[in-house]
């Protein structure tokens, strides 16, 4: 006969955790372990010689406290914020359009989702080929007489404002947002559209007052994923941004790979700053989301 003991009770109580144990161990060993190692590396002291041998603590972070790095933070965070907001808004509009039209045009879904499978490096290369001043679009515009010379085509690659970078990221991230939210929009439409119309609501009113508010936690969550990814991604700004652009992931990679082992703590510190910003933004969003729910709202 089966006898229940204190130990078996405890095991029974926490048996659900066994299912997530492999993922938890993976997170703890690789993510937490790697984070702690990176932190210790970035906090490493450096021996300096002046009159006597001295140990300088937190030297990597101290070196980052300068106007240039602050500007780089502004540029990197600004680009990530622009990409996430623009991708979020464009993805939402495109999803609404797809949900409305996909019943008739299924192939549209495939076109919108295709870029998800293209690597970032390749997407940057594709953008270079088409958006450079010597690229396809400029030659086409010149051939049909829209511009007088190829140089008259707007500078979108290696430009001052990072337009090419933003466009290349959007090309990849808008499909991600669509993939994330369009099934939910489809469900929300089937649940609420009829009721909203019955109360006199137009399509636009239904979207603004019903669909978007209910979708908000997931939509903002998706934009945060895009923000966090763009903040730390390297390939696209490396290929499409100007050399003086100041993208932190590009600068960190250069510090890591080009200036010897002694500069590696700086590269790690740069990435720790980005991770800190990403964590801070995520925490603020989670706080706002919890407050939204704590007021009593539900979405399902």
């Amino acid at each position, binding site marked *: 006969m089966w006898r229940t003991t204190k130990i078996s009770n405890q095991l029974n109580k926490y048996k659900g955790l066994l299912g997530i144990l492999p993922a938890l161990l993976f997170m703890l060993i690789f993510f937490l372990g790697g984070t702690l190692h990176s932190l210790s590396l970035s906090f490493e002291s450096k021996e300096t010689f002046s009159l006597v041998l001295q140990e300088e603590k937190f030297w990597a972070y101290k070196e980052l406290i300068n106007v240039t790095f602050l500007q780089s933070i502004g540029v990197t965070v600004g680009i990530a914020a622009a990409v996430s907001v623009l991708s979020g808004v464009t993805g939402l509009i495109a999803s609404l359009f797809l949900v409305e039209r996909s019943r008739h045009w299924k192939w549209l879904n495939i076109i919108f989702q295709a870029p998800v499978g293209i690597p970032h490096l390749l997407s940057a290369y594709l953008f270079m080929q088409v958006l450079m001043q010597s690229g396809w679009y400029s030659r086409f515009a010149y051939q049909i007489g829209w511009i007088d010379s190829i140089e008259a085509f707007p500078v979108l690659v290696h430009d001052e404002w990072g337009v090419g970078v933003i466009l290349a990221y959007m090309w990849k991230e808008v499909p991600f947002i669509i993939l994330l939210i369009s099934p939910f929009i489809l469900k929300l439409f089937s649940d609420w559209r009829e009721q909203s*119309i*019955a*109360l*006199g*609501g137009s399509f636009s009113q239904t979207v603004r007052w019903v669909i978007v*508010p*209910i979708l908000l936690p997931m939509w903002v969550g998706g934009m945060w994923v895009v923000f966090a990814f763009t903040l730390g991604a390297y390939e696209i700004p490396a290929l499409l941004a100007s050399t003086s652009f100041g993208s932190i992931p590009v600068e960190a990679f250069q510090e890591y790979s080009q200036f010897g082992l002694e500069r590696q703590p700086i590269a790690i510190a740069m990435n720790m700053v980005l991770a800190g910003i990403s964590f801070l933004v995520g925490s603020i969003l989670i706080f706002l989301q919890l407050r939204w729910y704590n007021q009593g*709202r*539900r979405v399902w």
Partner: protein
Amino acid sequence: MQLERIKIQINQSIIINSIDLQINSGEIFVLMGPSGSGKTTLLKGIAGLIPFTSGKLRWEEKHGTTGIVFQEPRLFPHLTVLENIAFGLRVKGIPAKERRNQALDFLKNLQLESLESRYPHQLSGGQQQRVALGRALILKPDLLLLDEPFASLDTSLRQDLIEWLSKLQRRLGFSILWVTHYLDEALSVADRIGIMFEGAIQQIAAPAALFQNPATEKIAQFLSLPNRISRKQWNKWFQSELNLPTTQNRGWIDSNHLQVIDRDCQLRDINKEVSSCIISGIVTKVRPNREGYSIQVTSENNLLDVNTLGWNKIPKLDEKISIIVPFEKIHWYTE
């Protein structure tokens, strides 16, 4: 509201086929019919949620308005009770302060005062359905369309809400087109009842008239009328050709009007009654009810449902019994 030859076709299949229907001002019209008969589609068509393939919808005045309430309350989960009720006013462009005042005022009608700040999941099923009704009624529709609004609630709550809505309807004076599959619900509220089969309304009548004269055997069956027997069999039991119009070839009688009789004591006296007949049969099923027993009797390959009064004498299975049938209690109809 008047529907003229309304037809609704979805994906090549005709759901509603040439329906004519008039609903009078202040009337409660109950629409009944089996699942898939097209009741909900008709309601959605009237509400403008599904387009009519052909036909016309006319109003007594130039333009009429409708409100619709479904079986599930369908309250917006991110909005409070007050915001849900005021949703239609917001759509109309009424300023925030005014719509708040109107919605707060309307909460009294709904008996939901002090719940205005709650979210739908914080309400009971009955409260949720009242909010759904309030959300439609605050727009003062000429016709309220109800699609089995209380079907998911338990019996006592359903009866309370029917009573409450009937009072509210009498006070505010709007018309209702009410779809239900509960006969008791239909009988307690309906001015007229329409029976719908296969996309067409087969019969419209006042509740009493509907039971007394079902238009077809199919309707009689749908209304669960007991003891539906062919005229030929009744003729046989009454041992004479019954004096009825030729079209009335079936008759039903309520189980309470069939009386089990003691063969030894009563048979001789009762036989003298010209307007009654005696049927002999075998008891095949016995189950208790609130007033006695419901028994099923087989006689000449016909099944008869009979209710007995009192629990003292328990009918036995396979027992041979006699039943007296009063002729004037039989309702005649056309098969």
